[in-house]
Each structure stands twice: as structure tokens, then as C-alpha cells.
């Protein structure tokens, strides 16, 4: 065998050379590189820009100011998103649901559609799509460009630098800060991004904990519930600021859970050494403003929106079906809600919310519309909505609040929904991505089940404390 001969020779030679081959080779490469660059590179003059980068880095990565600045920047981005998305959302809802929806219904009528066909198509599929577009498009169109601008400027590696210390203490890899940041956009993207982590142990930790980064499908839920229930606790002038604060607390709580779960995993299932790595802080680069806006709108916003629509359409159909197909004298949805209610109330939620989360496994974006529709149906509120299994948008945020309160919601339900929205299983796309990345049923199961167990525990505890105190 010729190939064996090669391998034998290489084994013999390896013995002859002795240890340190790798190091000597690396040294050789470095010294060659130094010689070559000395021959052709000339540095001159002072390096003002470099100094600017250095002094900016001193502030944004300082031990005292690093975290406050991070939270401040996150707050500004969120606040702009919350304030800015309100108006276009209303406009879109008015157009798609106020104008186009009745028009579609009338077309269906003139074509002689039967009630179930028109219900299935327009009340189910179309309304689900319309809701997703009205609710998701405006915040994404603001959030993503802002985030991309920060990314182009070079802020993300500084965030990683700030968090590295804490992550290392939790037994995780410092680069997890980067994948975590990606998760704030989309968890599936965050899971794919973990490929930058070399060690399989730390990579698994990063994959499992990525779900604790609020993804953009969950931001609207947080923002809406915070505005209805928590913003309403204070005078109107402060409502925006207080809602922002509430949402930020949830996001920070997510980061806290990332650390805690990483620590837990690295002490139990995924024991091992923390590996070190070099993190290059790239120079700050002025973002090309318009180009960034354009690409983040086209590439990120529209792609995520498209995904949401693809999942929302069949989900809308399912909601309509379970609300209109009967078991005995009730329909499937009602039957499920009644059976889930006991457990739901125990953990400070209710049957409607649990059912909504089951229906919305494909996409977190449709949780709120599903909850509204199911609440109206099960509480048999009259005067709103247009029938069983019809998703709708109410003209104002306070009207949405009225529905929910009529459905038996309290401040506790709202807080626990925000917590549960943070702590529940990843969406089906993310679960599938985790499987593709880990190729392991076991770790995919852990990553899917662990957050929801945590969610049950946290909601249960909050409910018990609340009931004792209130």
C-alpha cells in the first residue's frame, strides 16, 4: 500500500523532529509575516483616528460605564421602536382590516362562497396575515435598521467584550455574547451563529440558552401587554417610559437567565473547562446610513416578515377550524380551553393563553391575535369581533385591554404572560435549526423543554407570591 507508506514515513519523521513542531511552524510563519510587512508597510505621522477609537473604547468598555451605556442604548432603540411603531401600526390595521377585509368578504359573497369557505379563507387565513403585517412590520422596520446601524458602527464586539467576564463566570464562551445579540433579532439566526464557538460544550450552552434572548416575534407581545397593563398604571405622560422600562426589565431578565442556565449547565450536564479566545475589537466605522437602511429593510425585515406570513396563514386556518368544528355541544377550542384552564390559573395564566401558545408554536408573532380571538369566543363577549375563529384588530390599545379584562385578566395575568413569553419553548423553526446544528435529538429536546419548565416554575412562584401579598 502506497498510502500506508506515506503515513509510516510521516510517523517516523514526527518522531525524529520531536515535540514542538506546531509551535516552531507557527513561529516561522509569524517571523516571515513580520519580515514581509516590515519591507512594505510604512507608518507615519500621528494616529488621531486610532486614538479616537481607543478613547471611545475606554468609555464603552469601561467597568463602570460599560453596562449603563449598553442599557441606555438598548432603551433608546426600544423606546424609538415603541413610540415610532404605534402610528403606522394603526394605519396598516385600519387599511388591511378596516378596508380590505370587508371588501374581500363582499367579493366572496358576490362570488357565492359558502359560509365556511369565506370563513376559512378570509376570517382565518387572511386576517392572520393582516394582523401579522400590521403588528410586526412597523416595529421591525424601525428596530432592525437601528440595530444594523449599531452593528455596522462596530458596537457589537464591545458588547461581547463587556459580557465576556460574566459569561466566563457562568462557564460559557465569551463569543456567546455575539450569538446572544443575534438572538435578539431571531433565535434561529442566533443558533446558526453559534458556529463561531469552537468548543462543542460551550457551543451547546450557547444554543440552549439562545432562546432567552427575546426575538423579534416576541417584542411586539411584550410591548403591547406592557402598554395595556403596566403603562396604564401611571399617568399618561409617563406611560411610554414606564412601558419601555417594563420591556427592558424582561429583556434583562432574559440575559440573567442566560447566565444562570449557562452556569447550571456547565455545572451539571455540560461540565468542562472554559476555553479562551481572542476577540478583535474592530475599528469604529461610520455606517453608510442609507445603504444600511435599505439592506436591513430588504434583507432582514422583509425576509422575517415573509417567514411570519408563511407560518401565520396556516395557523389562522387552524384557529378558525378549531373554533368552528364541534365536540358535542362545544367546539374544539372551547373544550381545550376549559381543560387547560385549571393548570393555567394555577400558574397565574389561563387556558386561553396556554392554547394560544400551542397554536402559535410555528411563530411567536401570532400569540396576541390568537389570545384575543379565543378570549372573545370563550367569554362570549358580544359586540366585538365578528364570530367564532375570527382574528381581529381593535381600534385602540385600550379597547384591547377591555376585552382582556372582560376575559378575566388581571395585572398578574399580564405580568405572567410577559414572563411566559420570555420563558417558553422556541418556535418550530428554531427547534428545527437546533436539530440541524446539533444533530442530536437529546439536545434538541433539552433546548425545547428546559425553557418551558422554567416558565412554569417562574410563573407559578410569581402567582403564589402575588396571591399571598394581594
Amino acid at each position, binding site marked *: 500500500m502506497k498510502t500506508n507508506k*506515506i503515513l509510516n*514515513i510521516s510517523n517516523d519523521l514526527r518522531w525524529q523532529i520531536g515535540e514542538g513542531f506546531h509551535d516552531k511552524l507557527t513561529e516561522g510563519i*509569524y517571523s516571515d509575516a513580520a519580515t514581509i*510587512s516590515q519591507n512594505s508597510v510604512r*507608518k507615519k505621522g500621528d494616529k488621531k483616528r486610532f486614538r479616537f477609537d481607543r478613547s471611545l473604547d475606554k468609555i464603552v468598555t469601561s467597568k463602570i460605564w460599560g453596562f449603563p451605556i449598553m442599557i441606555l442604548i438598548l432603551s433608546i432603540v426600544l423606546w424609538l421602536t415603541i413610540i415610532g411603531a404605534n402610528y403606522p401600526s394603526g394605519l396598516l390595521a385600519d387599511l388591511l382590516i378596516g378596508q380590505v377585509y370587508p371588501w374581500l368578504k363582499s367579493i366572496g359573497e358576490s362570488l357565492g362562497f359558502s359560509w365556511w369557505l369565506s370563513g376559512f379563507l378570509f376570517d382565518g387565513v387572511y386576517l392572520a396575515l393582516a394582523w401579522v403585517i400590521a403588528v410586526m412590520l412597523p416595529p421591525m422596520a424601525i428596530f432592525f435598521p437601528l440595530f444594523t446601524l449599531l*452593528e455596522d458602527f462596530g458596537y457589537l464586539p464591545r458588547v461581547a467584550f463587556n459580557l465576556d467576564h460574566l459569561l466566563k463566570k457562568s462557564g460559557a464562551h465569551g463569543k456567546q455574547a455575539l450569538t446572544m445579540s443575534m438572538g435578539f433579532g431571531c433565535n434561529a439566526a442566533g443558533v446558526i451563529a453559534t458556529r463561531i464557538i469552537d468548543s462543542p460544550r460551550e457551543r451547546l450552552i450557547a444554543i440552549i440558552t439562545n432562546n432567552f434572548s427575546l426575538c423579534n416575534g416576541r417584542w411586539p407581545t411584550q410591548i403591547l401587554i406592557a402598554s395595556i397593563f403596566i403603562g396604564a398604571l401611571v399617568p399618561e405622560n409617563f406611560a411610554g417610559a414606564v412601558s419601555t422600562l417594563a420591556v427592558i426589565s424582561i429583556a434583562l431578565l432574559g440575559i440573567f437567565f442566560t447566565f444562570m442556565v449557562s452556569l447550571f449547565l456547565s455545572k451539571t450536564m455540560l461540565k468542562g473547562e472554559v476555553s479562551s479566545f481572542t476577540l478583535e475589537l474592530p475599528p469604529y466605522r461610520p455606517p453608510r446610513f442609507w445603504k444600511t437602511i435599505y439592506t436591513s429593510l430588504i434583507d432582514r425585515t422583509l425576509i422575517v416578515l415573509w417567514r411570519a406570513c408563511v407560518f401565520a396563514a396556516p395557523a389562522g386556518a387552524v384557529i378558525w377550524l378549531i373554533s368552528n368544528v364541534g365536540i358535542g355541544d362545544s367546539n374544539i377550542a372551547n373544550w381545550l380551553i376549559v381543560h387547560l384552564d385549571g393548570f393555567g390559573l394555577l400558574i397565574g395564566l389561563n387556558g386561553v393563553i396556554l392554547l394560544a401558545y400551542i397554536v402559535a408554536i410555528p411563530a411567536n408573532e401570532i400569540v396576541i391575535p390568537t389570545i384575543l380571538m379565543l378570549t372573545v369566543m370563550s367569554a362570549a363577549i358580544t359586540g366585538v369581533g365578528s364570530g367564532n375563529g375570527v382574528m381581529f384588530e381593535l381600534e385602540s390599545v385600550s379597547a384591547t385591554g377591555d376585552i382582556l379584562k372582560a376575559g378575566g385578566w388581571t395585572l398578574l395575568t399580564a405580568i405572567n404572560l410577559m414572563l411566559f413569553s420570555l420563558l417558553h419553548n422556541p418556535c418550530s423553526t428554531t427547534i428545527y435549526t437546533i436539530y440541524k446544528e446539533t444533530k442530536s435529538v437529546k439536545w434538541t429536546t433539552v433546548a425545547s423543554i428546559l425553557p418551558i419548565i422554567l416558565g412554569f416554575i417562574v410563573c407559578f412562584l410569581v402567582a403564589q407570591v402575588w396571591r399571598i401579598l394581594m
Partner: protein
Amino acid sequence: MKKAVNSACEGCDLNQASNLKKLGINIDNNNYVVALAGNPNTGKSTVFNALTGLRQHTGNWPGKTVTRAEGGYSYNEKKYKLVDLPGTYSLLSTSQDEEVARNFILFGKPDVTIIVVDASRLERNLNLVLQILEITDKAVLCLNLMDEAKRLDIEIDDRTLARDLGIPVVPTSARSKEGIPELLNTVHQVATGEIKCKPHRIKNVPKNINNAIEKLSLEIQETYPNVPNSRWIALRLLDGDERIIEAVKTGEFISE
């Protein structure tokens, strides 16, 4: 002002880049395969987008590209498939993103490898360049981020650099598309064999190691005469790289 001049140039017949057709993801029936390699955060994806017209997401942080992206362009009536590899600092370790890059250059046998480097951090970037030059003969150095180097008052003598490395060097600022026409032309010349490269080989290694490399490399050449990178394979075998040992056993790199 500068922008306007640039765009006028792009439309001019005398401009070499006017022979460029961005083909997006249409990469069937290509004549040449071109790989894009380099350190993280040197602008590989920006170069990729400039050539293919695709909008692969770019961002200012290391490690953004973790899989390889493919796109195409046609230039001077030849079709090129361009493969954007994950950024790596070296090819000597075994993380997943490094392996993607390394395996493609080694087993994918690209016709040309464009090595994108950050002009303001040349010395550090050269470590990877020297490793890639051990693997492949046909390479072009894309000295990117020249605008940034200028701001830092760094001057680079690209002709000396080209002579030392033994491959063509093209200064670019891919963000503003400066130097892209020259890059296209140089890649074309290397692909068609108009330019012959004589890449630098790692020199500063102790004699006994060098001898060992030579000996093993000769042996590999005898067994597999068509292998272009016997020295690299020898290097990796001596380092005990499992993946390469496996490849030698199966004869993977001569199979095509």
C-alpha cells in the same frame, strides 16, 4: 462629489468593470471557481457583494459569515463562481468555521483564491496569507480597507509586497468599489494563466523540520503526482491532523 465620478466611471466603455455582469445566484456552467478567504472582519462579504450583486449581509464584527455563500459573475465572457468562505485567523486548528475554509481551499481546488486582508493590520493578516499560499499556487491578494489605512496614515508599497509574496496584489476599498475593476482583471489573468504566481513558502523554520517536510512532500508527489499542494499535506501530516490522515488514506484530494 467623489461618488458621482465613480458612478460615471462604472458606466464607461473604457472601464474594465463594464465587462462585468453580476449574475447573483445564477452560477451554473461556470468556467472558473474563485474562493474568497481572509481574516474575520476584513470585508470579504463586501467584496463578494460588489462582484456578484448579491446582498449578503455585512456587519462590523468578526465571525459574521459562518457558512460559505456562493454567487456568480461573468467577466470578459467567462463565467465565475465565487465562494465566500468564513473568516479565520489561521488554518491550523479545527473549529468548524476554519474547517469550512480550509477544506474548500484544499479539496474544492478553486481556480483562484482571493485573499482579502485588512491593509491597516497587514502583519497580523499575513499569517493566514502565508498559510493559504502553502496550499494553493493561484492566489490574488486583495489589500482591502485602503481608505481606512490612509486615514491611519499607513502607506503600503504594494509592488514590494507582491514581489515578496509572489502573487499579484490589488489595493481596494470595497465599500466604495474602488479597485474592484483592477481586482476583476487580475483574477481573470490568474485564472487564464496570463499571470503565473510563485508563492512565498514559509522560510523561518528549523532545518530539521524543513528537511522532514521536503522528504515527505516528495514522497506524496511520487504517490499522487497531480497533487498541487504536497507541501501543505506534508505539513499537516507532521502535525498529526486527523482529517488529512484520513484524506491520505482515501486518496480524497486526487479523486477529481
